[in-house]
């Protein structure tokens, strides 16, 4: 319809949503479902559950859209809700972030020295789909931190707030998770689930 040179191109739609207009809600929904589904799926790692979370998040967003003041874009605001919802969902299903806090050294993250070392990323063929598959295989704690940092652009302070962990933990989890991810990328997916 009308796209205006606003900083947020959805200002009009948002305004109409704030008046409770269903049609505008649907339009915004359509604009954002896919992106938000992907955000959600990366965190939750389960398609049906991701949809459930998404449903809650959208209902949340639309019923609280009155509190949206336009300090960020609507997309950013919505994403915050989705991320929080997704993490709450993981919590409800005994998020393995517990194991994330107690640093079980060397249990599943191989030799520990690698934290400080530069990664040998050279020669790894990074390619979207393989990265996605590797993300899918990551342990939950790693996956969450990685997807927030790497994909959603959260910094470690923000991650520590959302996940209720310290910034240092976030950092080490990120480094370990990344290392793990690179390992997964290195080993050829010869017999993986297809």
């Amino acid at each position, binding site marked *: 319809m009308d796209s205006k040179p606003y900083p947020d191109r959805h200002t009009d739609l948002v305004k109409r949503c704030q008046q*409770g207009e269903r049609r505008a809600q649907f339009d915004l929904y359509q604009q954002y479902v896919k992106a938000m589904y992907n955000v959600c799926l990366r965190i939750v790692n389960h398609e049906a559950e991701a949809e459930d979370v998404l*449903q809650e998040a959208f209902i949340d967003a639309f019923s609280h859209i009155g509190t949206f003041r336009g300090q960020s874009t609507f997309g950013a605001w919505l994403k915050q809700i989705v991320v929080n919802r997704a993490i709450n969902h993981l919590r409800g299903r005994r998020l393995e972030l517990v194991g994330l806090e107690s640093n079980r050294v060397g249990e599943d993250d191989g030799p520990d020295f690698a934290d400080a070392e530069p990664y040998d990323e050279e020669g790894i063929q990074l390619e*979207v789909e393989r990265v*996605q598959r590797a993300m899918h295989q990551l342990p939950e704690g790693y996956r969450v931190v990685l997807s927030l940092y790497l994909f959603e652009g959260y910094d470690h302070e923000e991650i520590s707030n959302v996940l209720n962990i310290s910034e240092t933990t976030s950092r080490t989890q990120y480094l370990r998770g990344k290392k793990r991810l690179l390992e997964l990328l290195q080993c050829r*997916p*010869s017999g993986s689930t297809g």
Partner: protein
Amino acid sequence: MPAFGVDRVNNKKLTTKRSVVTNMKKDNLERFVRDNREAFDDRELRPSSPGNDLWQRIESGLDKQLEQSGTNQIRSDSSSPFQQIHKNSSRTEGLLAEGFRPNRPIDGWLPTAWSGLSWRVAASIVVLLLAGSFFYMNSQYGVAHQPEIVAADPRYAKAVVQYTQLIDDKRAELKQMTEGNPALYREFATDLDRLEKSYQSLKADLPKNPNQDVLIKAMIQNLNFQIELLNQQLHVIQRINRQTHENPV
């Protein structure tokens, strides 16, 4: 299958732009994700439940919420089952009729709900404003805390309020810092209480004293002493804490 080495393509996933990054330096992965961020958002909602399906769930969730907030206020009458039916039917037919839906019954009571809400919002804003202005006045002139002084000389009231607040804060801090050392706290507290007692007696004299100016100045000086004492006590505790921290025996 594309000639892409051992890569097995999951047919559910879309074949994305295959950007192959060969050797770069360290933050390779970060850069790769950043550069191809869009390509990562390629997953579609499951085909078994097309986008509309999820929307329907969302919509009915929203309806339910509206209903709840609505029934609380106005919709406890007998007309609701009727509206219910209408609402449901309009929902099921709703999505295919892409968007333009005239006069849904839901719109009928929605504004009423909103106006009820906005009245409540307005009322609470007024209350907040009143409370806010009271607190402002209070912090400026200390009406509630220091009525005697305000009566005697409003010029000093503000200073007294500020000092007493500062003292309260510092006392709280002191209490917190001496948590592990109640004996020390008691000692400190008796010193403070002595000053506080003389302050209270000055204050009690205030109404009948002819020379109020001098008395109020004395009171303020007393408060100054209290603050100074508190500062030094806090200093001592900090030193003690630092010592026990450095060499815990």
